[in-house]
């Protein structure tokens, strides 16, 4: 079932002439992980803001076309430290802030918070003051706080940016788990090498418009490599002048090399 549908959506930020999104049509289904890729300014962050109903509602500007959401959405911004409530003295209370504002009964809040802390491997930090956390720890707390509200549509903008290798691995695994639970996930990431293991579909944005949609194999295409959007392995393969099709991952490369 569709969780999010954009139908010929275009969006203009306030006081700008040219649209940040141009005629974008896109569906994200329940249980599906869709990755947005693109160069700087391609429109991935804007698309997430539109999907989250923050643009134009909060940002101002103008939307044309239609956006339909079936589920409540939660968004993890690329600046997670700006998403902390600032009103909680423990990690547990910070994660509980969202569910409490949804007016849920206490036992349901506790259940969702404990579950989210476990999923993000934050249980040992539950009683810490959020102000004392490192950047990566805080990023995981914000992700937990969003998930504790049990959104059906989860939007991530560069969710691994502040995470170390283990934190990123945990996050990508969690995103697959969210999809298995039936959530729809739309994420923007410049971590191209993580996409083959995480995403079901890739949407390549260019200058605000959809340039191509496909499986993660899209990131091994000549065009993607030339646009700086190939995986590291595909890019090296192309730079070495080896024949197509280019391998997407190290595992694919090993198969091709035999």
């Amino acid at each position, binding site marked *: 079932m569709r969780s999010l549908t954009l139908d010929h959506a275009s969006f203009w930020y306030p006081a700008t002439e040219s649209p940040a999104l141009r005629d974008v049509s896109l569906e994200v289904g329940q249980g599906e992980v869709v990755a947005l890729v693109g*160069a*700087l300014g391609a429109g991935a962050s804007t698309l997430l803001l539109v999907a989250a109903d923050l643009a134009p509602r909060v940002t101002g500007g103008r939307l044309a076309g239609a956006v339909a959401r079936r589920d409540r959405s939660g968004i993890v911004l690329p600046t997670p430290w700006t998403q902390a409530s600032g009103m909680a003295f423990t990690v547990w209370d910070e994660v509980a802030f969202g569910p409490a504002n949804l007016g849920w009964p206490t036992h349901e809040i506790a259940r969702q918070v404990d579950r989210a802390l476990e999923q993000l491997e934050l249980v040992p930090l539950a009683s810490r003051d959020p102000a*004392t956390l490192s*950047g990566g720890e805080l990023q995981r707390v914000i992700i937990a706080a969003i998930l504790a509200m049990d959104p059906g549509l989860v939007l991530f903008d560069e969710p691994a940016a502040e995470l170390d290798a283990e934190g990123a691995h945990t996050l990508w695994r969690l995103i697959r788990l969210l999809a298995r639970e039936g959530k729809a996930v739309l994420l923007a990431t410049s971590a191209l090498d993580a996409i083959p293991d995480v995403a079901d579909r890739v949407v390549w944005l260019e200058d605000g418009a959809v340039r191509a949609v496909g499986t993660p194999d899209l990131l091994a295409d000549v065009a993607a490599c030339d646009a700086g959007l190939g995986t590291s392995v595909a890019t*090296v393969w192309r730079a070495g002048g080896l024949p197509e099709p280019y391998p997407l991952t190290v595992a694919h*490369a090993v198969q091709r090399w035999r």
Partner: protein
Amino acid sequence: MIPVLRLDRVSFSYGAVPALAAVSFAIAPGERVALLGRNGAGKSTLVRLVAGLERPDEGALWVGDWDTRDCVPEQLAWRVATVFQHADQQLFAPTVRDDVSFGPRALGVGERDVERRTDRALEDLGLTAHAGHHPYDLPPALRKLAALAGALALEPALLVLDEPTIGLDRALRARVTRVLLDRSAASVALLVITHDLTFAAETLERGLVLDRGRLACDEPLAGLVGDATRLEPLGLVPPPVAALSAALDLPGRPVCAADAARALARVARGRLAP
């Protein structure tokens, strides 16, 4: 030669929480050093000490021939330029040009020199066309480059960068790599915190790894980033190019994309030859 930076058994705690324990190393002029480790390993704390924002509880930290215990951050700015992790949130001037020139002007260098340094930093990072824009009219990735330009304009002996590639696409990362290699060739030393081992392998030459506040590793990056068994207990994973070199057993085990592509081409040609 006097090291640009020297730490001699530096320890530091936040109250009862230890952050760094007896860390010692030195960095030579022009050296390109990656500071690696898990979240919470003490990397950002080390940067705060180098910038003079915190003082060691024990041990000594030297910037050139200055003992930082006798220095205030404004004085250290003559030799050390630091770009903090969220520096793109700290721009404050009405234009990118004003922001980049603020540092050298505050140091008190002559106006013509301020102009020259500002022009060069903007040019090097491809920001000249944005010089007259308000920083917050730029996308976050370009704001990040503007913050880096401000540090370059200080023309320091040591450039300290905390996660310089977050949010940058591949083209911008390559631009940052080019500028840093350029400055290092002109004897500017680099100390770069990063989780991006791909960027580290392309740009830097020596790896320091912190593990729970201790210096667990100090050696050439080229050997380190390809060694999965040694990286794993330190919370690190080989970048894909290094993993590819290892998986295909490419000669020399290259860790940079260009070197790996050349090695791959050579081996492939060899296979086709009669």
